[in-house]
């Protein structure tokens, strides 16, 4: 039996020489991983590096081809999710595995309902127990509430409560903060700290370096399915970490701010939407400029920009293009005038995943490839290959489905779609969400190039550092209003946060 004790840290999970092949790719090649008691162990790597595959092997969703897994020192074969659960391994996935129309309590004890002597469900016991676990993660909503009525953050806490009720010693978080607001992230981190103190081991997958540094103890880096190394986060410089991930040096101080913007081409005045999430948005964009929009999740950034392009009903306010007021009642009105919005949710609001790349790119601009009334394959190919080349979209050919691309390349496909329809005003909503470090830099460079070609670019982002690296000016939103617009010289993380959280513009 192999119980390795390093200092006083007991090893909860040890994975040795794990390999996994999918048709056409070696997803993992002899990867080692070790999780100790009371540590937060970050898994870092670009999309497709193999983090998810590794975690899925541990949680029983995939089966390994090679290698050994030890849990609490015992060699185990994890064949299915149920077995992982019995070994005390729980996963908090990005897409939650909760049943929307069951109550919080029912979800916590799904498949493990308490029963009375007569074989009926013991509701009192179930509610009481659910309450106990929900309290322990600071989830204040009623245990009888339907999951469908919970916010994203609340659902996540409920998943954690469920993991605790299973007495899981190993808890896997897969990009837990992707859709949380600042406050919610803070609360989550507090919970993670207390889980740590109880001696549980946390596996934490994330792309955000800031939060990795805040919450993580050790970090294992994967690249292209290979094990690169494990480091102590406190004693490693951020630039070294990035180099491990990217396999080359990435200069984080490099700026992508477009030079010499021109005149104002696009204005929004006093915009207000029907759902009240946007109460007063006023801003303007110059050609050749990147305007950032900062603000907490839920501050109305997305809704405001959707309102601008007619994807959200506007009740008040003006949209002015080249000094002429326009009305976009539907997205196709905006498209016709050269205004395009690229959603933060690439998969459900951007791409048609079942369609190939070619058709995805030309979706908004089919008129341009019509010849005498019929679609011309030749013209379409020309357009598409031009953008695949200029945006460096990595794909075997343009007939592969959009679902087969990595996040960064999917984003580029959407950029290509926006460019193919000759739009002048480009609105990017979280263009780098879920994209790895190297691909992010590429996207920044593309945004800069677009602006310098004369487009007016609006970039919504929750990551303040990237706004500071890309934007000529940054508008800050709070509770449905633009509360400040900062020039690049006056913008700083502190000031942006100050306005986003409640300061008033002077």
């Amino acid at each position, binding site marked *: 039996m192999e119980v390795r004790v390093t200092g006083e840290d007991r090893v909860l999970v040890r994975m040795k020489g794990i390999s996994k092949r999918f048709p056409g790719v070696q997803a993992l090649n002899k990867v080692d991983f070790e999780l100790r008691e009371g540590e937060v162990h970050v898994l870092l790597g670009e999309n497709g590096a193999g983090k998810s595959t590794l975690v899925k092997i541990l949680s029983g969703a995939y089966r390994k081809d090679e290698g050994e897994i030890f849990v609490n020192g015992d060699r185990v074969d994890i064949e299915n999710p149920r077995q992982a659960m019995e070994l005390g391994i729980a996963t908090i996935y990005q897409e939650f595995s909760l049943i929307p129309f069951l109550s919080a309590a029912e979800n916590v004890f799904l498949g493990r309902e308490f029963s009375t002597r007569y074989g009926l469900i013991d509701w009192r016991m179930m509610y009481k127990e659910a309450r106990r676990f929900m309290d322990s993660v600071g989830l204040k909503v009623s245990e009888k509430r339907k999951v469908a009525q919970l916010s994203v953050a609340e659902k996540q806490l409920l998943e954690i409560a469920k993991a605790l009720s299973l007495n899981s010693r190993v808890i896997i978080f897969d990009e837990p903060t992707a859709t949380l607001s600042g406050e919610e992230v803070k609360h989550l981190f507090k919970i993670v700290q207390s889980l740590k103190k109880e001696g549980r081991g946390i596996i934490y997958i994330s792309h955000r370096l800031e939060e990795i540094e805040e919450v993580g103890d050790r970090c294992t880096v994967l690249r292209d399915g290979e094990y690169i190394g494990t480091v102590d986060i406190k004693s490693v410089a951020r630039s070294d970490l990035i180099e491990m991930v990217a396999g080359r040096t990435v200069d984080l101080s490099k700026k992508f701010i477009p030079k010499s913007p021109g005149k104002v081409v696009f204005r929004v005045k006093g915009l207000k939407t029907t759902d009240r999430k946007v109460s007063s948005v006023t801003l303007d964009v110059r050609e050749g400029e990147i305007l950032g929009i900062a603000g907490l999740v839920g501050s109305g950034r997305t809704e405001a920009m959707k309102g601008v392009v007619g*994807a959200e009903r506007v009740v008040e306010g003006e949209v002015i293009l080249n000094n002429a007021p326009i009305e976009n009642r539907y997205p*196709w009105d905006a*498209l016709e005038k050269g205004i395009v919005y690229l*959603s933060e949710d690439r998969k459900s*609001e951007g791409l*048609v995943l*079942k*369609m190939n790349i070619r058709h995805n790119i030309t979706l908004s601009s089919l008129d341009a490839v019509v010849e005498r009334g019929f679609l011309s394959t030749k013209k379409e190919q020309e357009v598409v290959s031009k953008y695949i080349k200029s945006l460096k979209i990595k794909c075997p050919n343009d007939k592969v489905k959009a679902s087969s691309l990595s996040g960064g390349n999917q984003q580029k496909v959407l950029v290509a779609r926006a460019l193919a329809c000759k739009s002048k005003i480009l609105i990017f909503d979280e263009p780098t969400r879920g994209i790895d470090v190297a691909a992010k830099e590429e996207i920044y460079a593309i945004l800069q190039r677009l602006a310098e070609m004369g487009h007016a670019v609006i970039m919504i982002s929750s990551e303040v550092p990237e706004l500071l690296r890309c934007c000529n000016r940054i508008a800050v939103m709070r509770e449905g209003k633009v509360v400040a617009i900062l020039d690049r010289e006056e913008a700083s993380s502190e000031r942006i946060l100050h306005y986003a959280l409640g300061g008033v513009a002077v």
Partner: protein
Amino acid sequence: MNRILNVVKSYGIYFALLMLVVVFSFASEWFFTVDNLMDILVQSSLIAIAAVGQTFVILTGGIDLSVGSIVAFSSICTGMMLVSGVPIPLVIVLGSLTGVAFGLVNGVLISYGKIPAFIVTLGAMSIARGGALALNSGRPISGFPPGFEKIASYSIGGIPVFVFYTLIVYVIGLIVMYKLKAGRYLFAIGGNKQATRLAGINVRKYETFAYVVAGLLSGLVGVLLTARLNYATPLSGGGYELDTIAAAVIGGTSLSGGEGGLIGTLVGALLLGTLKDGLTLLNVVSYYQEIIIGSVIIGAVFYERAKKSSE
């Protein structure tokens, strides 16, 4: 070996049709005769034509349950117009337009009214059938001018004219699907409606378009069926909705939308027609025919699923 398996896999439905033809040819001496093969084509043609519209609808992620009832409604309207002396060309046009009317209402309620397609077309199924019964108090109509029956019984070089109608509809259907914007949008809408809307496409318009096409072709089938039978009955077209759905699904069109095609649907319709014809020649009682056909439909979808998960 693997190569062969792969070819069989990607052309599974063609092989299935081929196998059926081979098996039936051995089992019955009547099966592989020119007369019988032509008969299969004619028998399959009406389902095949209506299935083009059904495929359009299913591609958008919808479903049209009103196909059979619209066929009956159009048939009764056709019969009534004929006996009251409306010129035949006009009858053909107006008969088809009754289908367009139903399709338009279906489409508008589904896309603009946001009522689920299943519910709207289920309602339309009942309304159109009821309408067909009410128009002539449930009685069949016959005694048409002699020229009308010609549009069904005519044949060119020994090939029944219905085969040509089917070909024409499929050629136009294929052009719409792969060479016009509308066709591309059908795939996009079925693949991801919200993304398509945000990409600046008038989703509701093109969704309605699919139901209008389904209605138009159902109406046309009503006219053709009336010509073939040389009488009109409010009970005609029964089960057409399910046969057309079956043809599309056997042909590889995904009920969740966004994937599929017309060639598959045509082969699917032929497969159903061949199966019915062959089983009848073998004197299989119709009860058992239904059981076999049902199993084939489920088997086809199961096969598609297995193929996909192995990819």
